[in-house]
């Protein structure tokens, strides 16, 4: 067992951003270990992605084509990757931490008697894999102690896609055939669909005021709406607010909602669970107002206020209105 194998995903025929980040993590880990980094892509018609991979500094590219991999299923992907890993015997297998990876990678690791180290935010010498606990309140170092391959998924935004090294000479491409049969695929997926009209484009908003559980009830929302109006900002929310139906889903920021990178992100009553932070940590300036001084949102905030939002938000709205007049 040697080497780092990165499992990449394509989106509309191109490598997804999180896949580029996972490749950067793979190169980083391979360098630490003094080993080679390769990539594997699965699907049908993967040539454009393979060509894109050839421009990256990789020791090898594995292309796995099969009609049963055209549409993602957990059974198909798990079976195909199991065969690839048994054949190529990497010491480490890295994935981007996507909804798809969350669906199959734990099963893949189980087939090797291993446990996926999921949602990793950094890789330290050892290697030690850093991940968060208790909704981001604590960090933890994990070490692989199994005898098989070590499976790791990498959180979005933790490694820089632009740190990815380009190829000096294009890597060799190896086509790997896998044995899959329709009978082994037990689920029938339908085409993905969107529900809301997506009339709110948070991604292009310059200023966002975002509200979380701290607002306590729907009747208190006008308080933050007034602040957003004063700032000329879009109003957004963390997941629980949209789940409760207090604001439409299209205003949700986070891994299951929109990813935003405004000039200013003003977080009101948001504790900052990982799933929320991945959607907003690209913001230029973050201001956080929260009653809990240990809230993880303060880790990514430029300015922090520990206090009662019901006192601070109206005072701020008033002060902004005064400054503008």
């Amino acid at each position: 067992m040697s080497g780092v194998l990165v499992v990449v995903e394509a989106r509309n025929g191109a490598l997804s951003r999180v896949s580029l980040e996972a490749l950067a993590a793979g190169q980083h880990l391979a360098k630490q270990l003094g080993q080679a980094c390769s990539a594997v892509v699965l699907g049908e018609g993967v040539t454009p992605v393979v060509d894109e991979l050839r421009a990256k500094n990789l020791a090898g590219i594995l292309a796995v084509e099969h009609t049963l991999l055209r549409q993602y299923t957990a059974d198909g992907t798990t079976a195909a990757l199991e065969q690839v890993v048994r054949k190529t015997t990497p010491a480490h297998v890295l994935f981007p931490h996507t909804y798809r990876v969350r669906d199959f990678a734990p099963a893949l690791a189980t087939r090797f008697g291993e446990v996926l180290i999921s949602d990793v935010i950094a890789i330290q010498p050892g290697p030690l894999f850093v991940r968060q606990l208790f909704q981001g309140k604590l960090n933890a170092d994990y070490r692989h102690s199994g005898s098989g391959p070590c499976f790791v998924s990498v959180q979005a935004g933790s490694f820089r896609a632009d740190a990815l090294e380009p190829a000096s000479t294009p890597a060799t491409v190896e086509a790997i055939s896998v044995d899959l049969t329709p009978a082994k695929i037990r689920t029938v997926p339908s085409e993905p669909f969107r529900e809301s009209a997506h009339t709110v484009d948070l991604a292009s908003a310059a200023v966002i005021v975002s509200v979380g559980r701290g607002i306590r009830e729907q009747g208190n929302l006008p308080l933050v709406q007034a602040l957003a109006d004063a700032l000329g900002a879009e109003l957004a929310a963390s997941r629980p607010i949209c789940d409760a139906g207090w604001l439409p889903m299209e205003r949700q920021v986070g891994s299951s909602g929109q990813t935003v990178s405004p000039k200013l992100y003003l977080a009101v009553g948001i504790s900052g669970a990982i799933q929320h932070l991945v959607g907003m940590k690209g913001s230029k300036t973050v201001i956080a107002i929260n009653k809990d001084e240990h809230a993880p949102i303060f880790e990514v905030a430029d300015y922090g206020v520990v206090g009662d939002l019901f006192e601070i938000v109206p005072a701020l709205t008033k002060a902004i209105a005064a400054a503008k007049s």
Partner: protein
Amino acid sequence: MKIIVAIKQVPERDAQITIAAGGKWIDAGDLAYTINEPDAYALEEALQLKEKLQQAGKSGVEVIALCAGPERVASTLREALAKGADRAIHILSDDLGSRDTLALAQLLAEAIRAESPDLILTGLQSEDLGLGQTGVVLAELLGVPHATIILQVEPTATGLRVKRELEDGWFQHIEMPLPALLTIQSGGNKLRYATLMGIKKAKSKPTATIAATPAHAPAAIELTRVYLPEKQKRTQMLTGTPAEIATQLVEKLQSEVRVL
């Protein structure tokens, strides 16, 4: 139809977490515990499914709450019974912290196999460790199909049709035969409260307590250290009265952030 809901007890969301001496885990001293929120949604989905099937004239629908952990998790199981689960299974274990996901899933799988359920539900991830894997590993061990991050479950003539959440506001329907395992996303339903009648009834509902068997293999991953996250940014904390804080913030918005 027999439905098993695997639930976990975790520290309450607002709990003040402190690191224990030795730096390997948290100080469990005075922590208050509750049901893991996504597991509460899994239980709710099971109870609604039972009601739907009963309305359609199906009898013999049973919801079983399953939880592994020390004595204290009995309170979470009692709450599940009070909300409407028919019976509970408690895998009594004081050493869960030393077991990895695979070893824990093996414990749950042994208890589940003995029941031969049609459907297993659990939350998509826990609020403490957040590894998000127990459900998928369990499906693999049980040899049943699975789907993750599910918001809706509908019974069909041949099995189930479920609505799976994807990224960026996308969804997908998936059909699958039974038996199957689903991991449930928070927010798909409205959670019910236990009624007084439910709490009273729970007292006469059976809870089977079974002793945990030792782990089959040494752990494949090991948590070596817990610590407070390093700040990714230098946060400037603003203090004073609300009016003073507002004045300072406006000043930052004008001169530093330049949005005013």
